[in-house]
């Protein structure tokens, strides 16, 4: 955060801190902010079901929260998950952030925190990978800034929103140096 310069400069604001915490059902209203973009949900019911059926039982699903003056009261501004795959050594990272908080380094900070935690907590984990639409340059930059290595373009990989997409695969492995947790 930049400090104001010149006469009557304000004291430096407390830096906004990005933290991760488990979700609760009470987070459903905050979740509407990113889930309803671009197609709005008409009610919270499907999201409540999602929290109950997918989020709460999930081994590693976290709310991305901002704490610090002026930027909210710890309400989630996004979500991040690290999901098991067919092999115990390999997990897949996914994240989503409300549009209002894009472009501020929030996702990068969240991913860095998640890496530190997940390599500590998950037994036998060697690799965290993330798949990003080949056209999503912003999300690719998040991963690069968080220290991931771009490995390959996986062609015709999966269907997203009705079209077969090429996806870029990134990884962060157990032998990579962990980034500093601070945003």
């Amino acid at each position, binding site marked *: 955060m930049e400090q104001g310069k010149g006469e009557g400069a304000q004291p430096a604001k407390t830096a906004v801190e990005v933290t991760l915490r488990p979700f609760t059902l009470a987070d459903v209203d905050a979740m509407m902010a990113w889930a309803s973009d671009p197609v709005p949900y008409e009610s919270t019911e499907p999201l409540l079901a999602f929290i109950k059926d997918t989020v709460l039982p999930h081994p590693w699903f976290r709310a991305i929260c901002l704490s610090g003056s002026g930027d909210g009261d710890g309400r989630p501004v996004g979500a991040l998950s690290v999901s098991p*795959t*067919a*092999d*115990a*050594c*390999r997990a*897949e990272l996914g994240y989503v952030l409300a549009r209002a908080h894009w472009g501020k380094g929030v996702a990068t900070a969240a991913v860095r925190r998640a890496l530190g935690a997940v390599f500590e907590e998950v037994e*036998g984990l*060697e*690799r965290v*990978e993330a798949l990003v639409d*080949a*056209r999503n340059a912003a999300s690719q930059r998040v991963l690069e800034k968080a220290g991931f*290595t771009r*490995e*390959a*373009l*996986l*062609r*015709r*990989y*999966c*269907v997203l929103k009705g079209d*077969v997409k*090429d996806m870029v*695969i990134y*990884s962060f*492995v*157990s*032998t990579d140096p962990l980034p500093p947790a601070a945003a």
Partner: protein
Amino acid sequence: MEREPEMEVTLREFAEADTEALFSWASDPRVVRFQRREAYSRVDEARRYILDHVLPHPWYRAICVGSVVVGSISIKPGPAEEGGSRRRSPSSTRASLGYRLAHGYWGRGIATRAVRMAAEAAFAEWPWLARLEAVADGENPASQRVLEKAGFVREGVLRRYLVLKGRPRDMVMFSSVDTDRRNKPVEAHGL
């Protein structure tokens, strides 16, 4: 030059009667070196594998040279994450291929022919298939060459992708996609 009928490579379904043949390569440490499974030590393990895994599998074929079974090749529809599930998710467009060949038949292009034939069969049988992928161990250049010669494209190295016999392995990812096979222009992503 005409290929001798004894050397013709064909694919057919497995039967329990192929137990001894499967055991011959599945018990060979050179063949299983880059596989999760340890080498079999008892023929009954091979028989159980055919009954429990091969026969119910969505696509598992014996590689034959003439009438001799010399290896196997299999294709699993759907993302690998679906594990043992036999039903692929409706949004899946991919399948993954694996193969193994008895050591005495290495170096003659047999695996390459088998991979080509299997890939053609998969794209012909499954209209939903857009991507057929295969991984080869980073220290298995022979297998990487098989996939390249069979027309697969090397996409990159996936670091510490699997743990094989206690050691993390880098795996090279290869794919053959529908747009290659139709000769359609492929979108460029500035890579």
